[in-house]
């Protein structure tokens, strides 16, 4: 086994790495190179001449700065909401529910992943609409729903990605030995103290693992915001708009570097928390 181990390792790694390096990284590289080109103003054809005009526009224009900050805030809000909602649910599933109940709950949480993303978002659109469920439910209290806008977008995105946060936290909590919790109780800590000092630090990498999904999925999403976001724009819409409206692949490529850079920084940052092992 050890004699040929390097050969075997090479074999094992070759196919997946080839696939990813060539298909994926290669494609990304092509996109990033095209960010340095421009398009002809009238015909929309790409001019293969290196220029930093796109990046210059990216850095100097107020619009891109505003939209990027808005997108990051939306993604952060979604992540926070998901974490806060998912944690008690995952805790119940992992530590309080009986084993049969546990299986049932996992199925209940996983099933919505199969329901179509688009249909879910349109259902929320119907719910947020002027004569939709939310307004209908709030009417007796004299309140009005948020209607279409960033609030609705955050709520819908948090709804969509919730299972992606519940699963890693649940997996993390499951791995947490009950004996640790009992020991903490025996040493005199109440439930709150145990949660704060024992559970949270140990489960934190799982939360971060879940956050990778919720953050990145929210950062790049352009469909949900078009459906429930009213007139709001996020960075995904700008990229999509540059590509389809302006027919400007180079500018879209330049804009695409923004979420790439943000996510790479995020990934490098979470590496230290060990979250990447908890995925």
């Amino acid at each position: 086994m050890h004699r040929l181990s390097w050969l075997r390792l090479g074999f094992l790694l070759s196919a997946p790495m080839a696939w990813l390096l060539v298909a994926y990284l290669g494609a990304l590289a092509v996109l990033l190179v095209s960010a340095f080109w421009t398009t002809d103003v009238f015909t929309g054809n790409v001019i293969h001449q290196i220029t930093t005009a796109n990046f210059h526009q990216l850095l100097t224009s107020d619009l891109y700065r505003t939209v990027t900050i808005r997108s990051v805030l939306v993604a952060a809000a979604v992540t926070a909401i998901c974490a806060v909602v998912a944690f008690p649910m995952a805790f119940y599933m992992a530590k309080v529910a009986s084993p049969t109940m546990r299986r049932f709950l996992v199925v209940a949480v996983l099933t919505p992943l199969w329901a179509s993303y688009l249909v879910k978002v349109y259902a929320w659109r119907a719910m947020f609409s002027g004569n939709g469920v939310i307004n209908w439910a709030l009417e007796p209290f004299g309140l009005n729903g948020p209607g279409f806008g960033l609030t609705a977008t955050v709520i819908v995105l948090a709804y969509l990605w919730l299972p992606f946060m519940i699963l890693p936290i649940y997996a993390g909590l499951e791995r947490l030995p009950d004996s640790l919790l009992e020991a903490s109780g025996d040493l005199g800590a109440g439930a709150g103290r145990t949660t704060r000092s024992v559970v949270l630090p140990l489960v934190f990498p799982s939360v971060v693992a879940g956050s990778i999904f919720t953050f990145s999925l929210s950062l790049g999403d352009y469909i949900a915001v078009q459906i429930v976001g009213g007139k709001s724009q996020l960075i995904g819409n700008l990229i999509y708009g540059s590509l389809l409206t302006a027919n400007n692949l180079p500018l879209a490529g330049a804009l695409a570097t923004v979420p790439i850079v943000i996510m790479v920084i995020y990934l490098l940052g979470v590496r230290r928390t060990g979250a990447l092992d908890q995925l």
Partner: protein
Amino acid sequence: MNSRRLLVLATAAVLVLTACGSDSGTKDKNGAAATQGFTAPKLTALDKLGTPEGEVNIVAWAGYVEDGSSDKNVDWVTPFEQATGCKVNVKVGTTSDEMVSLIKTGQYDVVSASGDASLRLIAAGDVEPVNTALVPNYADVFEGLKKQPWNSVKGVEYGVPHGRGANLLMYRTDKVKPAPDSWGAVFDASSPYKGHITAYDSPIYIADAALYLMKTKPELKIKNPYALDEAQFTAAVDLLKTQNANVGEYWGDYLKEIQAFKNADTVIGTSWQIIVNLAKAEKAPVEAVLPKEGATGWSDTWMVATKSKHKTCAYKWLDHIISPKANAQVAEWFGEAPSNAKSCNETADKAHCDTFHADDEAYFDQVWYWTTPIEQCLDGRTKVKCKNYSEWTTAWQEIKG
């Protein structure tokens, strides 16, 4: 390669210099672009039809290619498929910009291009000239639509006309009182419908603002809403930025607009006749009007993509869609004026052609067809530079904020 590029540029320069002297004034208002500013790449039209290839991939406006799935009585695709054996795959484009980029992918054969897409496609070489001898029904098309600046270059036809119409102001009759007759209803900064206004989600909408300013702020001296110099453009963009505060949603997808009007999330905004008809069928209390300032509109052309692999089927589609019966069906379903003169006898509603002013050139003089803005001002001014479409696009993203 370099010397060829230089030759093309030189030719273009000569063309620009010679064309610059001409006065396009008000008569040729819709299309000075074709004779100024660019040379179409040298492409040849198909010279004869071959055997149908079995499929045709179409990029079209919603409602132009109906196969019975929207309404089982609305189907002009199935007869075509049965007659020619060409299976129709349609991709609905929500805006001209989307259509241009779809055609650029090279995966589609035919496109129903409005005037703001057609010239861009021609200039980029994405569509080729159409040999109208291979399209028998072309002979019956209204003369006023043939060889126009948006569908031909120097007498060479690049497509067959589909039909034309105007953008309308649609409103909820129960929420918007009194009935509006001016675009001012959507541009009013202190509108009572704040948060419930809609506008078309494309940079071309800037022309609508310019059209409004043309009539309400004559001091800006806007002669053509697609020919805007710095000051005029800034005025239009400012108007739209003010409007943005009152807009609830921008629309590109017509079901969203119908839904929004039905649920009263939107109560007033730009629309097409087909949307009005479908909303009324959904029992939404809406009406539409062509405001007193006039409106922007479109005159669509069916064009054949250069990279198409199914050109025979493409030509067969062109012939089918402008045939009297099919053209009448689509004109009635969509709510526009047909391009085939014989269609007027085929419409279910005999007054259709009159209602939509099919043969009324004077009416369409009030409608400013979508056209691509370019640097050489489309209204003939030579001393200033007008804003090109790329600047319109950037401004549009800033307007949406």
